[in-house]
């Protein structure tokens, strides 16, 4: 099989990227999705709040996903469901497998990585005690309740204040469970403020900051957990332990981009984002391979996933039309200054003829701080922000007039001034 563009993953990122590439004139496109339907993680996110920016409507996850699935169905983009990609080789040949066809080899001119992310499992945490049932990630619980229609427990403790955990706190409460508390090891919440308000405060569910679960109890089924306060270095403080009775512990302790394929293909990964290193069109360092959505950086808002994926779709279309254009790219790195954890894209091709938006996250909470973008030591923008938090992605734009004047020796940096 031969395709101009192979899109790996049929979540919002993959669908938007494929649609954009189609619009830009790419002929043969296929989306490979390991699940039985398009939509990705959104199919289980039944709460509303998706598409506020993009559709100016408050949609639920499935509604947002199905809008794109419908658009895909109206084009001649091929979709292969139940199909798992297992390898990308040096020449951009993609190997996938499914029950119908067994092993499938596809020659691709360009590839878009849109595999999304998965939740950090319990193994990634230090927790003493038994291994009873009743300990699960918040996303797994979300699937049980929203897709399979059954309740995983009655008395619940949630560890981690990521958005999925907050959303599940509300969902379980509405379904009649008792959500005892949300414990967050950091001194600030990892979720969006609106989710703290709507999901916890509305139901009087306490959020304990600088607190973690240090042990689980129970043999077959979870019977309780021990929580404790932590110090600045996140070590439990002796004497602050407290036993909490519960039958379910939900973990919402972060998401990890699903980049096994990417790593196997020899593509460089950013240590902080855990996604590929990309340029402004989301081109990775491997020729013809692009990445977008949660596989590139964990997003809080699907609207930004969609926008990012349009960039990747456009980039792939550009590559398919003229791969040589990418040979004379001149790259300048984006540098994280004070207070900035990471920036996507990690590098900018200064031959671009468009403004470039840099997305970033800060390392800690700031109030009334300034975000400063500098190019070659000169301030390009200096914006006041009432609040900055690691849980919320920020952006700054480099205007094309500034990029035009840059050379391969130029420096781009973003920093926060408290």
């Amino acid at each position: 099989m031969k395709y101009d563009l192979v899109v790996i993953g049929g979540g919002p990122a993959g669908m938007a990227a494929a649609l954009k590439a189609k619009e830009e004139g790419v002929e043969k496109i296929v989306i490979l999705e390991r699940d039985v339907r398009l939509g990705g993680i959104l199919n289980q996110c039944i709460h509303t709040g998706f598409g506020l920016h993009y559709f100016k409507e408050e949609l639920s996850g499935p509604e947002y996903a199905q809008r794109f699935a419908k658009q895909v169905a109206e084009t001649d983009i091929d979709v292969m469901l139940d199909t798992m990609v297992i390898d990308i080789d040096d020449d951009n040949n993609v190997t996938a497998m499914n029950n119908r066809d067994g092993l499938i080899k596809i020659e691709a001119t360009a590839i878009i990585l849109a595999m999304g992310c998965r939740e950090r499992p319990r193994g990634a945490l230090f927790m003493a005690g038994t291994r009873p049932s009743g300990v699960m990630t918040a996303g797994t619980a979300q699937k049980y309740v929203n897709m399979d229609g059954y309740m995983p427990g009655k008395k619940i403790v949630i560890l981690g204040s990521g958005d999925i955990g907050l959303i599940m706190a509300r969902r379980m409460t509405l379904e009649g469970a008792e959500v005892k508390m949300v414990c967050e090891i950091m001194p600030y919440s990892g979720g969006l403020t609106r989710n703290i308000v709507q999901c916890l405060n509305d139901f009087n569910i306490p959020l304990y900051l600088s607190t973690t679960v240090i042990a689980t109890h129970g043999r077959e089924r979870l019977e309780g957990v021990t929580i404790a306060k932590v110090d600045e270095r996140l070590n439990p403080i002796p004497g602050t332990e407290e036993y909490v009775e519960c039958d379910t512990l939900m973990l919402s302790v972060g998401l990890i981009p699903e980049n096994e394929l990417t790593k196997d293909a020899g593509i460089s990964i950013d240590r902080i984002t855990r996604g590929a290193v990309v340029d402004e069109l989301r081109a990775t360092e491997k020729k013809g391979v692009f990445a977008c959505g949660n596989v590139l950086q964990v997003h809080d808002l699907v609207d930004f996933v969609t926008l990012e994926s349009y960039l990747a779709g456009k980039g792939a279309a550009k590559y398919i039309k003229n791969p040589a254009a990418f040979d004379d790219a001149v790259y300048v790195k984006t540098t994280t200054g004070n207070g900035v954890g990471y920036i996507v894209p990690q590098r900018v091709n200064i031959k671009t003829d468009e403004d470039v938006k840099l997305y970033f996250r800060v390392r800690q909470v700031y109030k009334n701080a300034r975000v400063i973008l500098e190019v070659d030591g000169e301030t390009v923008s200096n914006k006041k922000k009432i609040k900055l938090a690691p849980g919320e992605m920020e952006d700054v734009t480099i205007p094309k007039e500034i990029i035009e004047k840059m050379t391969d020796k130029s420096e781009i940096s973003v920093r926060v001034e408290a």
Partner: protein
Amino acid sequence: MTKQMYCVACPLGCFITVEYDDTGILNVTGNTCKRGIDYARTEMTNPTRSLTSTIRVIGGKRAVIPCKSHEPLPKNMMFDCMKEINKARVKAPAKIGDVLIPDILGTGIDIVATDNCD
């Protein structure tokens, strides 16, 4: 008198301060856009929230179908509405936008399907 709150109308989550007296709201500050003022007004008088849940499906390919209140419901009616939602059953097939429970508890607001189900 003043009351402070976070606007939840969009993910920005502005921290809003409302000045009010017996006659009503005098001033709203901290909002980034106009919707923040509307939010503050309903929050002071009749707080509302969107409700999402699932309804059991009979004879379909899936156990439950997701649904939402077509418009925000009064906050103090959430749990009563949940009881209605848990009692309801839907015959497959159903599609996005289908009214699953019309005019829930006389609020004038419908509960509609938010996914397709064969």
